[in-house]
């Protein structure tokens, strides 16, 4: 069972979330929908993210691949140019740097796709329609809790609370 409460500002929505969390609701049961990002204070609705780590790891991966590739190709087809050594870190350092950055870029984008879940299949949870400027809090609860949750949402300051069907 999904309930959706519409709020007109961040503070009442945050209050509602804290109230629900105090009553044994998990952040997995909660979702906030809006037309622009809502800046909740820390501790209200934190979602763990490993994007920075992914970015760094992507960069390092591409760096190692690039270094290996340059070393291999320059030795595979060894030609002397201008008296320079076959594999020169300084002469090819730019390549390594750019490839590292490319790795970080690609990793960031791929991780974004994963973390935001935009490419996932149609999720079974209904998406509420949000009016521009409003913040909609969607709560997943058992059928018995509907009245309770509705009460909490209204008390926190929801303008309206409704049950969500398949079409939100």
């Amino acid at each position, binding site marked *: 069972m999904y309930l959706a409460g519409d709020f007109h*500002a*961040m503070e009442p929505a945050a209050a509602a979330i804290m109230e629900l969390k105090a009553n044994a609701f998990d952040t997995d049961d909660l*979702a*906030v*929908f*809006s*037309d*622009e*990002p*809502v*800046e*909740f204070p820390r501790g209200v*609705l934190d*979602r763990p*993210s490993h*994007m*920075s780590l992914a*970015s760094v790891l992507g960069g390092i991966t591409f760096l190692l691949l690039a270094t290996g*590739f*340059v070393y291999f*190709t*320059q030795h*595979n*087809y060894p*030609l002397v*140019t201008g008296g*320079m050594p076959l594999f*020169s870190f300084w*002469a*090819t350092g*730019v*390549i390594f*740097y*750019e*490839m590292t*950055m*490319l790795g*970080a*870029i*690609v990793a*960031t*984008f791929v*991780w*974004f*796709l994963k*973390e*935001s*879940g*935009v*490419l*996932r299949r149609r999720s079974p949870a209904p*998406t509420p329609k*949000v009016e*521009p*400027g409003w913040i909609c809090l969607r709560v997943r609860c058992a059928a018995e809790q509907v009245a309770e949750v509705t009460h909490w949402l209204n008390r926190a300051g929801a303008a309206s609370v409704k049950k969500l069907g398949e079409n939100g």
Partner: protein
Amino acid sequence: MVVAHQVIPYDEVRDDLWRPLSGVSRRYLVVLVCAFLVGLSGLVAWGYQLRRGLGVTGLQRPVFWGVYIVDFVFWIGISHAGTLISAILRLTDAGWRKPVTRAAEAITVFALAIGGMFPIIHLGRAWLFYWLVPYPNSRLLWVNFRSPLLWDLTAILTYMTGSVIYLYLPLIPDIGQLAEHATGWRGFLYRKLSLGWTGSDWEWHALERAIKLMAGIILAVAVSVHTVVSWDFAMAIAPMWHSTIFGPYFVTGAIFSGIAALLLAMAIIRRAMHLEKYLTRKHFNNLAKLLLLMSLLWLYFTMAENLTVWYGNEPKEMDVFGARVRGPYARYFWTMVFLNFVVPFVLLGIRRLRSVTTATISSVAVLIGMWLERYIIVVPTLSFSRLPSAWINYGPSWVEVAITASTFAAMAMLYLGFSKLFPIVSVWEFEPHPAEDD
């Protein structure tokens, strides 16, 4: 007078920013057709060059690089518009940048696409351009990674990938909104591009994290890209090319010309799409101040380079220096100084003269001046080579002029197309955050 944008109701914001997406005005069509014709002339010119050979240009030994390379550096420089605005201002949380970021990022992507064509256009055997890419082949050949041109390839490839992603990411929420309201082929396009965006908090969270990371990465890449482009010259031993100052000099020049391009684009957008409420005088004032700052910085680097050459009095370098300052290229050199420094300094430095109009005039001046600056860097060094028996005067042919003109036309067309598909001012970013102070 500053209009406080917070008081514009959200519906009005969306209507204003979405209105240009539907319908084409007469003026739009006229500009599009003109741009198309100019672009076509460039294609014809290039086709002629492919058929006959590079001899149709004005190039000759020892001036092996001419207007095409000038164009290349110029357009890659313009592409730093987005980097400064989006990345630096985003990282420093300057709120006034918000209506400007998408226009800037669009300039970046299109300028890169155009600039990236020139390494192909200037080739003697352009149909073999893909040989610069290391791919396994039956002849077991690889490429020379020690060449600065390969560094160019990787740098521009990286920057292009990053810029496209950096343009696309903040576009997703706006496309999501558009997808809800659009029908037909547009609706199909928007639905596909929005990737199923629903506006949930974890999507926003991931998006903002990604944008913040990308801002930092893009900044690092952009600095390296134009440094690497400058090293095409600095790594050579030609007199007045082989200078350590080229890295920072070119990055500064790129940001300088990028801001000018952005200012010009904004002035046109503001007028053509009636976005005076969103691109306010405050934005132009801030960008004008940045332009002035970059002008001074550019002057500093130019002086540092020329002063050290002149004082050092090394004969080969003095040949080139004399050519620039007193010789055949003097008129370009001093025009460049006038356009890049005097015009912005007077029009923007004097508070009473600073306005949207004078800022636009200054940007046009800077754009011309910066093109001349690239010309001054590339050509005199080559035409006054180390062995005087090879000295020659270079002048571009109609082919080079046509192709150069067509790049501006291409930019116009790309921008016209983009502004009809996507809102040029970011709608979701324009909405003020509750916790934000501007």
